[in-house]
């Protein structure tokens, strides 16, 4: 593959792995040169069991130590999905905490598990069974744990979506100073007494609506059926799997964030591995999140201000994690995800995952290359800055908005122009009302009744306005705002009022609005037969097949001309 900066065309497609002089049991571990190797990682490094364990543990501690973001005595929430990466992470933390005092990890861990069974189509019994298995493992681990179900997003307060500004941090804040500051803060707390406790209580009061009591470490009660139904309604109203996955990630992130705030955790550790992050990076590129890649895939994600998300497993490939878990008996629980058993072409996430894994099989350095490139990304603010000294944040993903409606020499500008040029010019008296007139392709819900038009479109338009580019694209697949959890709608309303209701809807929002209710792809059109099968590219493609494919592809967009039509222009 054409790797930049590497000797071009390392192994050609015919030759997949470098030839190892595999002489069976004669080969020794490459590290200690004594033990018998039990596995090979990377491009031919053979390790014995002990060296592998040492290497694995060292990597974890080096990742934490190099980044120096965790203060001693800090409360850190470990997000556990039951999968191998997060299980391994918890195991490493456990290992690290139990060492001799000099090298011991010094923070206070807790574990959170989010039960997403309702969205993944699991019945209540299955969910209860899974939760019981989880609890078994969590009890052996011994950290305080919180089991929350996704239905609790309906109880979240709108403060989840409000960014908390960090205290003024000087640019020369070294780690030592930060630790000192943190310790001082901790010592001050008992004196300031009820303030932090009051905050927690306040959150607790806002979050739980019914008198069942705060969701504590017990979390025994299964969610109320009404909430489960609301959740399933929300997710079934979303049209595409891509949008569902994105929505799920957003809700999960908010839930974890809220739980962390509630119980005083200032850091959250996520178990994303190198493989997963490489796939996530490419997926986010395709979703339009190029501006936020550093936050989405970097080691630390500080967009929420007070709670920082960390990814200590980002240096481990899935292969290493799998081998470690197997060799050292790390327990994990399998839970189906929202896209389990979905066909490969069902969502962008699935497509990208299978593409990268296939490519990795053919060019073994793909994932490490993407990882290396991701390390070069920085959390730069957009040049040109958004309106106002404090840049607005996206309502859902909490990143600084990356859309500048004034700048039309961009892809976003091109899209809105496309939408606008397609419609007959709207009546001049209603600049913000892209209501349907004759000539619309589909009779839309907004025009079936004369009045509801304005009332329904206005909140949606202003909602869309508060989102970043990729969240807007996702919202195109969410036809109705009502099923969304109340905290989102409340916050949207608050922001709208803050900005001022009379603000005209910018053309940007208008353009996207036009797209939201339109069926983008004609349904029932068969896919072209020359598409690659899931076995991937076996070798050189036929010469003209791509160009022929494009020509064939446009056939589906052409209408058959019926006889007797107006010959003008057709």
């Amino acid at each position: 593959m054409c790797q930049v900066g590497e000797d071009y065309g390392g192994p050609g497609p015919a030759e997949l792995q470098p030839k190892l002089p595999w002489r069976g049991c004669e080969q020794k571990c490459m590290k200690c040169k004594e033990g018998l190797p039990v596995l090979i990682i990377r491009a031919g490094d053979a390790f014995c069991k002990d060296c592998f364990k040492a290497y694995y543990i060292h990597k974890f501690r080096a990742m934490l130590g190099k980044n120096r973001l965790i203060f001693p005595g800090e409360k850190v929430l470990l997000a556990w999905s039951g999968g191998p990466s997060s299980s391994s992470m918890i195991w490493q933390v456990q290992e690290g905490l139990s060492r001799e005092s000099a090298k011991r990890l010094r923070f206070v861990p807790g574990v959170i598990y989010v039960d997403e069974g309702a969205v993944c189509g699991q019945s209540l019994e299955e969910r209860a069974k899974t939760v019981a298995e989880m609890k078994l493992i969590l009890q052996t681990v011994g950290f305080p744990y919180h089991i929350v179900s996704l239905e609790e997003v309906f109880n979240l307060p709108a403060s989840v979506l409000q960014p908390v500004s960090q205290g003024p941090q000087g640019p020369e804040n070294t780690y030592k100073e930060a630790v000192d500051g943190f310790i001082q803060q901790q010592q001050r707390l008992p004196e300031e007494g009820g303030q932090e406790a009051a905050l927690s209580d306040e959150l607790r009061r806002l979050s739980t609506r019914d008198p069942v009591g705060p969701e504590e470490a017990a979390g025994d009660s299964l969610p109320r059926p009404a909430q489960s139904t609301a959740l399933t309604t929300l997710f079934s109203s979303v049209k595409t799997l891509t949008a569902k996955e994105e929505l799920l990630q957003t809700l999960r992130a908010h839930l974890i964030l809220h739980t962390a705030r509630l119980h005083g955790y200032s850091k959250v550790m996520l178990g994303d591995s190198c493989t997963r992050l490489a796939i996530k990076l490419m997926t986010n590129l395709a979703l339009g999140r190029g501006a936020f890649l550093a936050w989405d895939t970097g080691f630390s994600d500080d967009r929420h201000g007070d709670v920082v998300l960390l990814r200590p497993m980002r240096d481990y490939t899935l292969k290493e994690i799998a081998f470690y878990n197997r060799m050292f008996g790390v327990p994990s629980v399998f839970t189906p995800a929202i896209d389990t058993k979905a066909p490969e072409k069902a969502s962008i996430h699935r497509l990208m995952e299978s593409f990268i894994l296939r490519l990795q099989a053919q060019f073994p350095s793909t994932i490490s290359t993407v990882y290396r490139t991701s390390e070069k990304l920085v959390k730069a603010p957009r040049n040109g800055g958004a309106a106002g000294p404090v840049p607005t944040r996206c309502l859902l993903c909490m990143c600084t908005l990356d859309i500048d409606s004034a700048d039309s020499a961009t892809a976003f500008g091109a899209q809105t122009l496309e939408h606008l040029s397609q419609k007959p010019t709207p009546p001049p008296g209603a600049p913000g009302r892209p209501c349907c007139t004759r000539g619309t392709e589909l009779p839309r819900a907004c025009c079936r009744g004369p009045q509801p038009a304005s009332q329904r479109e206005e909140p949606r338009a202003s909602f869309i306005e508060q989102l970043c580019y990729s969240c807007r694209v996702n919202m195109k697949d969410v036809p109705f705002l009502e099923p969304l959890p109340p905290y989102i709608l409340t916050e949207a309303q608050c922001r709208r009022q803050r900005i001022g209701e009379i603000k005209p809807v910018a053309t940007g929002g208008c353009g996207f609005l036009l797209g939201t209710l339109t069926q983008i792809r004609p349904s029932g059109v068969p896919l072209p037969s020359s598409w690659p099968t899931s076995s991937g590219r076996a070798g050189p493609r036929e010469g003209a097949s791509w160009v022929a494919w494009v020509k064939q592809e446009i056939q589906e967009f052409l209408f058959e001309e019926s006889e007797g039509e107006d010959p003008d222009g057709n």
Partner: protein
Amino acid sequence: MPVPRCSGPCGGARPAALRRPRTGGAVCRTCFCSAFEAEVLSTLQTGRLLPPGAVVAVGASGGKDSTVLAHVLQVLDARHALGLDLRLVAVDEGIGGYRDAALAAVRRQAARWQLPLTVVAYAELFGGWTMDEVARRAAQEPGRARACCTFCGVLRRRALEEGAQRVGATHIVTGHNADDMAETVLMNFLRGDAGRLARGGTLGSPGEGGALPRCRPLQFASQKEIVLYAHFQELDYFSEECVYAPEAFRGHVRDLLKALEAARPSVVLDLVHSAERLALAPAARPPPPGACIRCGALASRSLCQACALLDGLNRGRPRLAIGKGRKGLGEEGEREGCTSKTRGRPTLAGAIQAF
């Protein structure tokens, strides 16, 4: 199913002839063509790409993109009096069975549009090297990919620059479309080309150090719409694929993009949007370019990539200038403070290698 009425500015006066791929709206032929042209015009105007009085060298390959580009520029120039002087520049890489047929198409187009045509051949510019010859030499190492596209891309940009200088152009335009840009950003990530990612941007290159400014008026137009436009305008273009294309890495990415578009039709523009907003570390950006000591073209090191590649070929070591190190070329020592990671791959003439 009855054909729906057009939803474009004609207000349903005509039956729709097609459905626009990205938005799904049904439009008639006239509205589609005028919308397409309006979008290209908007790209030109908002980016202020081609000032009036510009002598524009249009890179014409005979393929659908450059054909549509030349046609639209002509139409817009006539309709809106943009004051452009269009000249076609075609590059003959010397690929038998492909380029000669394409050039025939270009000649037909030039005759039909009454535009001056200049053909620049590799063999003439680069000391007798044609792509077929390069491919033969590069194939001598068994078990390795041939890297034909690497050579061809670098040399073609050099040739285009040369051709443009010959016709006295002030700007160069190429027919890269939105799909090309989307593929390129995916490719750059997969190849780890932070230099190109940092350098790239959607507004072409402003032209520095004597190189001509370049732009891509079709950069927001989707490939399908270009084909549809060519279909409705009945443009004559050459539609075969390059003989060496099946070996290219871009093919993988192209297949991926096809599949992504089925899952979400707006993915192409989403990728372009992502590319516009990438933020890379300053260290990843390439150093400011100087001039090649041999040919004077824009270069990040002492030798421009075209000269370096040719050097390798002439010495019988085709891979000399490809990949890390570039040892043995007789260049000056590395720039100070430049680690191997930040060197990236130099390009020439503000070349649009990123997108």
